[in-house]
Every structure is written in C-alpha cells, then in structure tokens.
C-alpha cells in the first residue's frame, strides 16, 4: 500500500501510479497538454509541473510515479508561476489566431491560457512561420499552431500503427510532417486530429463552418460502414451532421476510428439521394406518393402470388440494414407471402464461412470480442487484410505486434506488412497448399490429442505437400518453418479468416484447414465482415435455410413455436439461395422480387447475367437510399432512410448487439422496416408497429437466441453474445470437405500477357456506398489496379498509367499502381466505382459444398488506355 499526500489530501493506492493519476482519483485537476488517453506519458509540454517535498525543482506529474510518503503540492504560488511561464513559452510561436481557428472553444491551450496564462509575452522576436498544408482532401495541417506535444505522432505510432507522421528537424525548427512533407498519403484514420489539443491538425470537412458551441444535439451511435461496429458520436446542427467524433469512454473501439467512420458520413447528404417513391410508368420511373407506392406494391405482390404461388416470390435482405429491417423483410417474404426464398449478400462470403465453421464447432464459434485480440500473443491471418476490411480490428492485430506478439499473414500482408517477420505471400491459388503444410506441421508438433474424432479423422487424411512444391509457389522454407515453430508456442492465439478463402479456390477445404488450425491451437476465431449487420441479417432469418435466431428451417419444433407465439406459419421446404433466385428469375420460376438496401447487379459477378435476370422479373421492388444499378431496373423504388436517420440494432462480427440511434431528425426516406410493415399491412398483416422497439419486442419474443433481450438494455456490454437466450449446441455429426484427401493442385501460372485478377478491398472505400461520399472520393477518387511492378514492367506499363482491363465478361478502366505486395502475375481491382467494378467483369460458379460464391473468369489482359 502506497500513501501519499496531495494538497493535504491523503491518497492510498496499491499500484505504482503517476502523481497525475493519483491526483485524479481524489478530484484534483492538474493541467496537461501532452498527456492523452491510452497514450504512454511523454512529459514534453511541462504543463503538469508540481512541487514535491524535499525535491528542489518542480517535477512533471504525468511521468513521476508515486512513492510512499510523498508530499505533493499542485497549487502553490511557485507552481502557478511555473504554469504561467510554460504557457508563455508555448505561446512564443503560437499565432493566437483563435478567432479563425476551428478548435477555439474546445482548445486546451486556449482554456489553460485563459486560466493561468500571462496576458502578454516578453519575447520581442518574430514568430516562427510555417505554411499551412491544404494538400490533403480531409485533413488540414497548420504547423504554426502546433505546440509539439507529439500526441498525434504517438497516436499514429502507438495506437494506429501507421507510422505516417514524425517530428521533422530539430529544436525551434521542429514540426510534425508526414514522409512526403506535403500530402499525408496515409490511412487517413484521422485519429491524429482527435488527439491534437490545439488547432494544428483539423478536419477539412467542416473547416470554418461551425463552432463547438453551435452543436445543437449529439447522439451516440454505431458506425455504419463495416462489421466492427465502432461507437461514435454524431454532432448535429439544423438536422445535418456537422461532424463525427470518437467516444473515448464507450464502445469496443476505445476512441479509435478509421477513415470511413470519421470522414465517410457525408454520403447521407449526397444530392442523388432518393427523395420520393418512384413507380415505373411507360418505362420511366416517376415520383409518386407513399400511399400509391405501397398499395401498388401490395397489389402486384398479391396478384403474382395468387397467379404463381408463394414460391415465385423472393427477397434479398441487406447487411447494411438493421435487424428490425431484416426481420420485417423476412416476415413479408415468409409469413405474409409464404415463400422461403430469402437471402442476402451475406451469401457472397460471410454466411457460408460462418455457418460452415458453426457446423464444425457449434453456434457462436466466431463470437469473440475484438478488444480481446490485443491480449493475444499471436495472430494468424488468412484470406484478407483486416486493416482494410475491418480497420479497427486491424489496429487490434497491430497492437499484438506492438506488445511483442507474433503476426502471421498467409497471402498479401498489406497493412500488416511492418508487423510480420516473414512474408508468406504465395502464388495465386496456392493458399490451400501453404495452409495444409502449416496445419500438418503444427498438428504434428503439438502432439495434439483431439476429442473430436471427426476432425481428427479428417486431419489424418490430409495429404501434406513437400517443401519443393511450396518453394515453387514462392514461399520460403525459412518462413514456413518459422511460422510453424512460433504457432506451436502460442498460448492465446487468434485466427482471422477473410473473404479470399471462400471467393477463390476450394472454399470448404480452406475453411476446414483454418478451422482445424484454430482448433489445434485452441485459439479464437474471427471472420471478417464488410457490412455493419451481416451477422444480424442472418440472425433475423434472412437466409433460405434458417429462421429467426439461426434455427434451421428443418427443425419442426421451432416452426411450431413460431406458430404458437406469433401465429405465423412457416412455409414448407427450403427456399432458394441468392444464386438460385437469379437463375430462377432467368428461367422464369421467380416472378417477383423485393430487394432491400442491396445492389445485386453490381455486387454479384457476371453483371450481364444478373441484369438480364432481373429484367425478366414481372415485378421488382427496391428500397435503397440511392438509385443504384439495381434500383434503376425496378418497377417500384422506395427511398429508404440512411444509417444516421434511423433507430435500430446492428449485430457486429463479434455478434455484439448494439443500438443505432437516429441523429438527423428529418429524412428523405423512411426506415425499411416501416416501408415493409406498411406493405405487410396492406397485404393483411394483423400486427401493427408503432416504433422500432415494438419490432424488437416481437423479435425477442420469437427468437430463442434473443429471448428476453430488452431494447433498452442494449447499451455498453449489454449486447454481448450469448444474449439472454440459448445458442444451438454443436451439431453432432459429420461435415463435408471438398477434396479433403486430394493434394492441392499447383496453380496454373498465367500465360504471358495475361494476368489473374483479384478483388482489392480498399481501406478508403466500403463497397459501393462510399462512392457517394465526397470526402472518401476526395481521398481515393479513381479505381486503381494494384499490380506487381515486375509484371507491370513485363507488360510495358508504368505507374499511374490509365489502363483497360479486359476479361471474357467485360472491361474496366483503372489507374495502374505498382504494388510490391502483389505476387507476380496478379492484379487487384476494387468493386467500388460505377462501371469499373471488379465483379462486373468476372464470372462465378457455386461452391458445391458451401453453396457460396466462387469467382471465375479472372484471367484478364491489361493494356494502355487510348488517349482521350
């Protein structure tokens, strides 16, 4: 027990903490500038000077640890003089331009100067001048205002792990700059600007448009860009979002945000937002009233069901919509129209991956907590870059490295490049080879005795490739040996699975290998999720085989429960999945479709096929916030409300239920659940819902997973898995692995002049939604083709050139960008930009075991674009 006295108040602690922390415990405030939440102490601003008895000089409270019997004074006259002097020093070069500074009103330097500062400085020399950098689309850097507390640099290095900025020069010439000296060219997470105590690094988005005291309202909500579900605060004035700021006290992200969350909120204000419902009349979509659109939709659906039966109707749900929206869509399709044909874009990766892993290990196997990753001593990543798909989860992976843990990445290391010791970047198509070798070695070294005979039997059946094969696919024996040796030593490992494991190659085998590796290592599984509520979409029964709560349709008891509790009769038979719906529409067995918040034309490969299938439908209704490629084919379009305009719940990739709160009070559209409930009502549904809470109440009554979870209780840790209800126990029985005993084939190397195309997941963009965000478009405005520099050279192409990519399925135009992380003969294109999306120019097949998307027709030619 350590006892100290601060300003005559006795403080007792059992830990060695700093004087600053001890003072805080008893409510004594010591002014600080360079100390910041989650950052290690630096002691550079000298603002927190305190007197310690028997020490001749004042000491910095933020760095000095307490010792027993210490007597500290924080408010003596000498200390007041010292604070005044420190501020005088800090203001020597500060321009004192508070009237035009965005930070004024919440600036710590301003507050402290008002409280302690000298009215005038004694320095007669001129102030240091540095030009203001406006070179970046979202961040303004004004180094005149900088007080060199290095909070931004420490945030960038220690928390974000991007190492983009540094202190340049020395002494009074010091300033903070990125490598280029101009543009940041970094991850644009903007965490440096929430760390800046003054106005040196500020957001360009709302520059000179607000004052902190102009904020009329603020709400705590969940980011709507990816599957992490970061907590953030929306600040509003007159119904528009002025800015997004992080909340350091709440949420799983402890104050960290990524570029999409912090800057990508402005799509809600895009001028192309749909403003009123549209109905196709004489081939043109024309604005109509809400009543007309709802009645027309109900009438058409009723008519088509009468004519062709419920099985002719299908629904596509969305991971961008809330649980309540998705629940209501499946209610419409299943219980009002009588069809089990409901699926979502989760089918494209997340749903097959998670359900396969749950088949192996039981429901909830992927429900692990993201902040817990930081406590791990090793992370194994395969199939995608967590720092771009789920950036804040990626930060957690980097923090493992920061603490001395090991990070292993199979494939392109991307944003984790500086966190790994050896690259395991294999030739395209050789992932299963590498994974098999690693798994077999770890299994052998661990001397693992499995309790699961099914997995055990499959593990022994694996054919292990020899080192020669692995060297031929470009992996070094040293790297492999290192990975196997270190993996075995891990005490608390994490395995992260990305979309590439399923999208290319043998999905079930890749998933089995990773699942088994996690099982042998006794680790925690995470599956990357690129939309905020893909998991919730599945939990709400938006998948042909499962009902609300993830219960299989075949389980009759659950069907009875639905009938007894809600009077809803589940239709018979397993419905069609996403691909079967497209085929059904093509062949004419599907006549009507309701698409909610999804853009299948752009997101399912083979654009031409999907487009022509949807055109053959007798009736297509779409609810969305923009007139997407899909919506422009529709017979009825409903304007939905965007993420910031509605209440509801999201389920993130750790299966944590979180509340989305309405920020903007007026919306151009209506919440999807409301639109759907109106249609259901028009079709004869008995229940009526007053608000989103009443929808949730029904869900928690029906779903055995969510049973008893109250809407109000979903705050803080309230929504962590398992919720009130009971998860399904592990499903006993065998599962299928395609080609388990086959030796993975050596990939066929591309012929000269031809390149294999992959999907690039950019950090800046979240699928096609972010193309409507001016801020994100400002950072990355054009489609990029990432390609290995050697391959680019062999094609006679150079960096920043405009190129045309041609496949059997179509063409796209992009700017070539040399990227050493790409294996030779491989290029990557994003699926974001209109008319130039990756998925529009490739084809697909269905994985026989997973029933998931397997992308084909990836061989392309790349040529220099003709001059315009």
């Amino acid at each position, binding site marked *: 027990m350590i006892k100290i006295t601060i300003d005559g108040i006795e403080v007792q602690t059992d830990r060695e903490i700093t004087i600053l922390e001890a003072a805080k415990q008893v409510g004594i405030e010591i002014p600080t500038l360079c100390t910041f939440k989650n950052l290690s102490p630096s002691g550079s601003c000298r603002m927190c000077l305190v007197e310690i008895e028997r020490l001749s000089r004042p000491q910095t409270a933020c760095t000095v640890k307490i010792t027993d019997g210490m007597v500290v004074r924080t408010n003596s006259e000498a200390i007041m003089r010292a604070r005044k002097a420190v501020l005088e020093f800090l203001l020597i070069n500060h321009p004192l331009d508070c009237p035009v500074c965005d930070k004024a009103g919440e600036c710590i330097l301003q507050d402290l100067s008002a409280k302690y500062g000298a009215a005038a400085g004694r320095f007669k020399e001129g102030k240091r001048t540095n030009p203001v950098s406006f070179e970046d689309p979202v961040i303004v850097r004004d180094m005149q205002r900088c007080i060199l507390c290095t909070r931004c640099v420490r945030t960038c290095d220690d928390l974000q792990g991007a190492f983009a900025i*540094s202190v340049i020069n020395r002494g009074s010439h010091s300033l903070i700059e990125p490598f280029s000296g101009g543009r940041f060219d970094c991850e644009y997470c903007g965490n440096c600007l929430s760390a800046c105590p003054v106005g040196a690094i500020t957001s360009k988005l709302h520059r000179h448009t607000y004052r902190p005291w102009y904020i009329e309202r603020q709400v705590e909500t969940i980011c709507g860009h990816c599957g992490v579900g970061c907590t953030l605060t929306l600040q509003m004035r007159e119904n528009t979002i002025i800015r997004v700021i992080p909340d350091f006290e709440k949420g799983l992200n402890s104050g960290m945000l990524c570029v999409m969350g912090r800057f990508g909120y402005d799509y809600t204000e895009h001028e192309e937002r749909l403003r009123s419902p549209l109905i196709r009349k004489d081939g043109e979509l024309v604005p109509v009233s809400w009543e007309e659109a709802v009645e027309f939709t109900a009438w058409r659906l009723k008519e088509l069901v009468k004519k062709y039966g419920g099985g002719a109707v299908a629904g596509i749900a969305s991971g961008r919509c809330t649980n309540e929206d998705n629940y209501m869509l499946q209610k419409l399709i299943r219980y009002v129209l009588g069809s089990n044909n409901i699926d979502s874009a989760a089918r494209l990766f997340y749903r097959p991956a998670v359900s396969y892993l749950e088949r192996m290990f039981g429901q909830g196997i992927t429900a692990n907590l993201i902040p817990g990753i930081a406590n791990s001593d090793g992370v194994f990543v395969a199939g995608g870059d967590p720092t771009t798909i789920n950036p804040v989860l990626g930060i957690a992976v980097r923090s493992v490295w920061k603490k001395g843990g090991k990070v292993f990445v199979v494939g392109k290391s991307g944003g984790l490049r500086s966190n790994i010791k050896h690259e395991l970047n294999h030739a395209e198509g050789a992932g299963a080879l590498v994974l098999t070798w690693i798994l077999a070695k770890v299994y052998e070294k661990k001397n693992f005795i499995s309790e699961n005979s099914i997995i055990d039997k499959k593990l022994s059946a694996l054919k292990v490739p020899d080192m020669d094969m692995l060297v031929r696919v470009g992996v070094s024996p040293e790297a492999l040996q290192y990975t196997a040796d270190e993996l075995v030593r891990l005490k608390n490992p994490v395995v992260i699975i990305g979309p590439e494991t399923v999208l290319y190659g043998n999905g079930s085998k890749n998933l089995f290998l990773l699942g088994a590796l996690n099982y042998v290592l006794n680790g925690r599984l995470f599956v990357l999720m690129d939309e905020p509520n893909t998991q919730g979409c599945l939990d709400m029964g938006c998948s042909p085989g499962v009902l609300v709560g993830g219960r299989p349709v075949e389980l009759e008891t659950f069907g009875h429960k639905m009938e007894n509790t809600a009077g809803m009769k589940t239709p018979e038979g397993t419905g069609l999945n996403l691909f079967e719906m497209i085929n059904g529409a093509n062949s004419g067995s599907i006549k009507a479709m309701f698409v909610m918040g999804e853009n299948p034309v752009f997101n399912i490969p083979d654009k031409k096929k999907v487009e022509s299938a949807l055109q053959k439908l007798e009736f297509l209704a779409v609810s969305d916030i923009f007139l997407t490629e899909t919506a422009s084919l529709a017979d009825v379009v409903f304007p939905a409300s965007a993420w910031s305009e509605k209440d509801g719940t999201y389920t993130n990739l750790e299966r944590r239920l979180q509340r989305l709160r309405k920020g903007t009070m007026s919306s151009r559209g209506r919440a999807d659940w409301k639109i759907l409930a109106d249609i259901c009502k028009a079709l004869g549904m008995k229940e009526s819902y007053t608000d989103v809470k009443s929808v949730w109440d029904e869900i928690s009554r029906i779903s055995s997973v969510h049973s008893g979870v109250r809407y109000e209780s979903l705050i803080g840790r309230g929504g962590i898995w398992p919720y009130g209800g009971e998860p399904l126990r592990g499903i006993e029985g065998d599962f299928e692995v395609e080609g388990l005993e086959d030796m993975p084939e050596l990939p066929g190397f591309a012929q000269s002049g031809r390149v294999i195309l992959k999907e690039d997941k950019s950090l800046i963009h979240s699928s096609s939604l972010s193309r409507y965000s001016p801020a994100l478009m400002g950072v990355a405005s054009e489609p990029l083709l990432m390609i290995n520099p050697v391959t680019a050279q062999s094609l006679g192409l150079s960096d920043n050139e405009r190129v045309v990519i041609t496949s059997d399925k179509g063409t796209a135009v992009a700017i070539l960008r040399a990227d050493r992380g790409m294996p030779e003969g491989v290029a990557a294109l994003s699926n974001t930009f209109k008319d130039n999306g990756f998925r529009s120019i490739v084809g697909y097949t269905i994985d026989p075991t997973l029933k998931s998307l397997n992308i084909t027709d990836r061989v392309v030619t790349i040529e220099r674009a003709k001059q315009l």
Partner: protein
Amino acid sequence: MPQVTTERLKILRGKIYELMELYPSYQAALLPSFFVAEEIFGFISPEAIGEISNVTGVPAAEIRGVASFYAMYKTKPMGRHIIQLCTNVSCMIEGAYDLVEYLKEKYGLTPGGTTPDGRFSLVIMECIGACGTAPAMILDTDSYENLTKDRLDTLLESYK
C-alpha cells in the same frame, strides 16, 4: 546529381544489408546508411529513404525525422563540391563575411544554396576548431585555413 535508377537503389540495398549486420538493431544502421545514400545519390533522396525503409523496416516518416534532426546530413540536392565556411567569432573578425559576399558576387552562391551549374554548394558552419588560423573552411573533405579572397579564388579553380 546522380539519377535515381533501379541499379543505384540496388547498390544501396546491398550496402544497407551489410551495415545491418554490424549493428545490434536496424534503427542503429540508419545513420551510416545515410552516408551511403549521400555517396550514391549526392543527398538523402526520398527514393533512398523509401529503400532504407523497405530494407530496415523502419517507417519512412521516422527515417525522414532522423535524417532531418542532424545538421550535417544532406537532405536536399547539393552541388558536386560543398564549401563549409565558418562564420563564427574568430573567422568573422578575420573577414569571413567578406568571403561570403565574394562567393555571392563571383558564383551567385548564397548560404544554403547551390550554383546553377551544380558545381558548388555553400554551407555556413559554426566553429570548426581553426580559430588560430581563421578564416577557415572545409571544402569537401579537405580543410583550408588563413583564407583570403585571392586564395579562395585559386582554391576553387582546382575544384571543377
């Protein structure tokens, strides 16, 4: 100024790998690798920093911070020959500023600048420890003392 070519970057890479063997940590190899970069490119070019970062794994922004911290590294392009002229107290008294003025007149050379033909760069030094024989300068790696305008003139003629 030597052009940045893949060959030159390759030479730099090889040298850094050698240097990394000599030091306990990669960070420690930074300072000597700056000299190598100067030797190859005439100054620590952004491309060179990129290469050092790739090889050592030290972030590029941090390398730039280190390089800019020390005054004697060349962080911008310099002439073929570097005149490091002292203007501290003794040299100043003995007329170092006249020499600065003369260099400006004859070669158009300003402190911190480079002649248009890329022949000379002028760096103003603090004391170089030659107060007894002031004014003094270091030209590339040679030191010259008791300078006068005439002597400077003849000396510089021999550096083409």
